[in-house]
């Protein structure tokens, strides 16, 4: 869930080279015997909410990942496989039949049934409940009837119970990658005990959420302090290797980092920027980097005359030395990007931007002058996210390589930047970041570049692109869908509405008391793998 959350203040983040990733991700340097009776301590920020359909930031979804077991998870190739589901099938990509595994129970003893999923999803989609993740259900038939101030219906017409363990989901339009969506936090079930009346959540449910996952709550959510969970012995899936987890709440990552250094905390999920350069020395092989889903880019207001020519945009892209910036500014904690989708999803190709992604100052300048690019460029960013350094560096490169005047312009917060962009004020180029909602190429393309995309702030509109996305969504198989999406991505490379700059990575660290620390693509520590050392 925390998908898309490049919260400004944690932003600088991530990551080193993909090459390191493969071998580094296990943090398997730990030796010593595993202690199944010990609990581990993991850093989080104060969650905003702990109701599955209301949780879309990393900290909340980390806690919920302990308490709930998802329908699907993702394998090495980023393809979904069933976890709490027995099978998820569809003939036509429109009606999906979800069959649940038998034997799952909620922590209060209730048996998990199809109705638990239907009730939870209906609650999440119903607009008056104001759930943060309600948009995850927008593909399901009947979603529109649940919107507005006084919706026409209270339940999604697309959800039908077949028997105790089976239900069908009818989508408004065919979507070939629906199964990939189901791994997200919003699709967890809720027990009957969570509802005081149909469609009404028990007050205080989120203080001690009842789930069907490998851990159950130990006490209640202690705001600003911690959330503690312990192993749920009746969990039928893969049992975790620790007795419990204490999610300890930090407001500043530097405090958490100091605690990891002195073994007072076991896992810090993001090494603070100021400690990145010393983390290798401080932690040794306990400083680990793994791929993350974030993509950072500079967007063009294509509706503005001076940026409407794709050649201008390409020239700017060619004038930026991505390697130099990731190395000197980010200390290799991020990777240069030359594609519109992240390596975190199936269908990623390394260099889809093509020639426009190659650093070539001479060609860039010639192209820029031929296309009549503006003599002054502004780069807008939010001043609270640590972006100043790389924006200034980029500006200096543009000055030197294109012979233009370039200034960085800071807005106080990302919200202020968005307000101006939405009002089509001339902010010049502006920075954006994207984290996926679910591992699918479509999630990197649809919201950002389709004509009606929810985050298409640059006025980009290409009917061919929209058509290819629609064809991909209704493609009979995932492979064919990916082909369509790749064609769509090639169109983006021709038009270049944004300049992809960097891929993020997880930079995390752990204490000497744990081993097998892994992080998934959603920025969550894998709680079934982590082990405590005796």
């Amino acid at each position: 869930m925390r998908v898309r959350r490049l919260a400004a203040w944690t932003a600088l983040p991530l990551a080193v080279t993909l090459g390191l990733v493969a071998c580094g991700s296990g943090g398997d340097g730990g030796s010593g015997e595993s202690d199944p009776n010990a609990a581990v301590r993991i850093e989080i920020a104060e969650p905003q909410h702990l109701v599955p359909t209301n949780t879309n930031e990393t900290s909340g979804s980390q806690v919920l990942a302990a308490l709930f077991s998802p329908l699907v998870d993702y394998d090495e190739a980023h393809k979904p496989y069933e976890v709490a589901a027995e099978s998820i099938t569809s003939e036509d990509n429109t009606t999906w039949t979800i069959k649940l595994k038998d034997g799952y129970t909620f922590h209060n003893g209730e048996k998990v049934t199809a109705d638990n999923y239907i009730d939870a999803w209906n609650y999440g989609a119903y607009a008056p409940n104001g759930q943060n993740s309600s948009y995850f259900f927008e593909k399901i038939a009947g979603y529109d009837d649940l919107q507005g101030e006084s919706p026409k219906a209270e339940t999604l017409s697309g959800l039908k119970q077949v028997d105790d363990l089976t239900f069908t989901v009818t989508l408004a339009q065919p979507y070939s990658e629906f199964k990939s969506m189901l791994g997200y936090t919003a699709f967890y079930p809720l027990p009957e005990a969570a509802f005081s009346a149909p469609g009404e959540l028990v007050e205080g449910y989120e203080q001690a959420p009842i789930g069907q996952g490998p851990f159950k709550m130990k006490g209640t959510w202690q705001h600003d302090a911690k959330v503690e969970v312990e192993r749920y012995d009746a969990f039928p899936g893969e049992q975790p290797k620790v007795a419990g987890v204490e999610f300890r709440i930090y407001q500043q990552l530097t405090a958490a980092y100091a605690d990891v250094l002195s073994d007072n905390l076991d896992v810090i999920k993001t090494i603070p920027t100021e400690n990145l350069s010393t983390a290798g020395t401080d932690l040794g092989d306990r400083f680990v980097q793994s791929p993350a889903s974030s993509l950072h880019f500079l967007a063009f207001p294509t509706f503005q005359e001076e940026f409407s020519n794709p050649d201008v945009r390409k020239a700017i892209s060619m004038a930026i030395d991505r390697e130099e910036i990731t190395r000197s500014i980010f200390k290799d904690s991020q990777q240069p990007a030359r594609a519109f989708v992240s390596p975190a999803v199936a269908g990623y190709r390394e260099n889809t931007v093509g020639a426009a992604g190659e650093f070539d100052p001479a060609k860039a300048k010639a192209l820029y002058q031929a296309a009549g690019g503006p003599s002054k460029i502004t780069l807008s960013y939010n001043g609270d996210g640590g972006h100043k350094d790389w924006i200034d560096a980029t500006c200096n490169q543009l000055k030197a390589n294109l012979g233009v005047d370039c200034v960085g312009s800071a807005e106080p917060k990302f919200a202020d930047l968005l307000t101006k962009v939405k009002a089509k004020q001339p902010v010049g180029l502006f920075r954006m970041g994207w984290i996926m909602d679910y591992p699918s190429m479509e999630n990197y393309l649809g919201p950002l570049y389709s004509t009606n995309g929810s985050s298409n702030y640059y006025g980009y509109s290409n009917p061919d692109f929209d058509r290819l996305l629609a064809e991909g969504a209704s493609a009979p198989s995932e492979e064919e869908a990916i082909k369509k999406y790749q064609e769509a991505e090639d169109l983006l490379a021709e038009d270049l509405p944004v300049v992809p700059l960097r891929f993020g990575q997880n930079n995390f660290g752990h204490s000497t008391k744990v081993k097998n620390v892994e992080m998934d693509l959603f920025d969550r520590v894998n709680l079934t793998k982590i082990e405590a050392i005796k």
Partner: protein
Amino acid sequence: MFRFIVRRLLQMVLAFFGTTLIVYALMFAGQGDPIQALAGERPVTAAQRAYLTEKYHLDATGIGGFFYRYFDYISNLLRGDLGESLTGRSIGDILAAAWPVTIRLALIAIAVAVIFGVTAGVLAGIRRASIFDNATLLLTLLVLGIPTIVLAPLAQYFLGVKWQVFPPTAGADPDFFALLLPGIVLGSLSLATALRLTRTSVAENLRADYVRTARSKGLPNRRVVSVHVLRNSLIPVITFLGVEVGNLMSGAIITEGVFNIPGVGFNLFRGIRTEDGPLVVGIVSVLVVVYLVSNLVVDVLYAVLDPRIRYE
């Protein structure tokens, strides 16, 4: 004295409403899009936006909207309801959880400032121009010159991580020992100022006529210093410490962040970052009360310390 206190209490009521009005107006004016700020860089759905807008009357803008929201807030406040933060938590609960730890931290800081600052100040004042006096001058200048934002992480790194004398962070429910390091860091600035003030004041009073009189009466030196000199020298120090109590509670933003103490400063920082108007105004309102009360206590203490001061 009684009439003085009653008058001051009535003034406090006015001051309280005045400051909440100003703080509320500032938050109101500075508020861009709190819903987007809450979501970070994620897009906000229309449903979520409509829900929060209605719940917090965010559509009431302009002068009319401001007074509508301000009076709504004040009328709830008078009923003892501080409202809800944008994440739906009761601000009363947040404050109830945050205050005890912040007060403990501030008390430790004040104790550090008084015990070490005043004692060393008196010694330095008595032995003016001695090695001790010069050493404290140098040391306090150094402490005054280092901002907390540097001092706190340094103390944490050396005393917490490297030598492991203290736990590096205190956490939500710290014992006295865990709060000691943050308390010393927080109190060090007040300590330095209190020391300088005491030293000057003592040095000056030692040359006063009444001290010479006391000495010529044959009073023992210890009594001259502890009763005659110290009592009169404490007035500026008390004034300073009174204001400092408020500063320590609101100014603990950096210290509480570095040592991960979920107190008032910690919550204030979060409130400002997420443009959470109700939370910021709630915390500041309580801080205003703390300032007002500590100033009143200071004024009353004047009368106790200096019999020449009388309140009508």
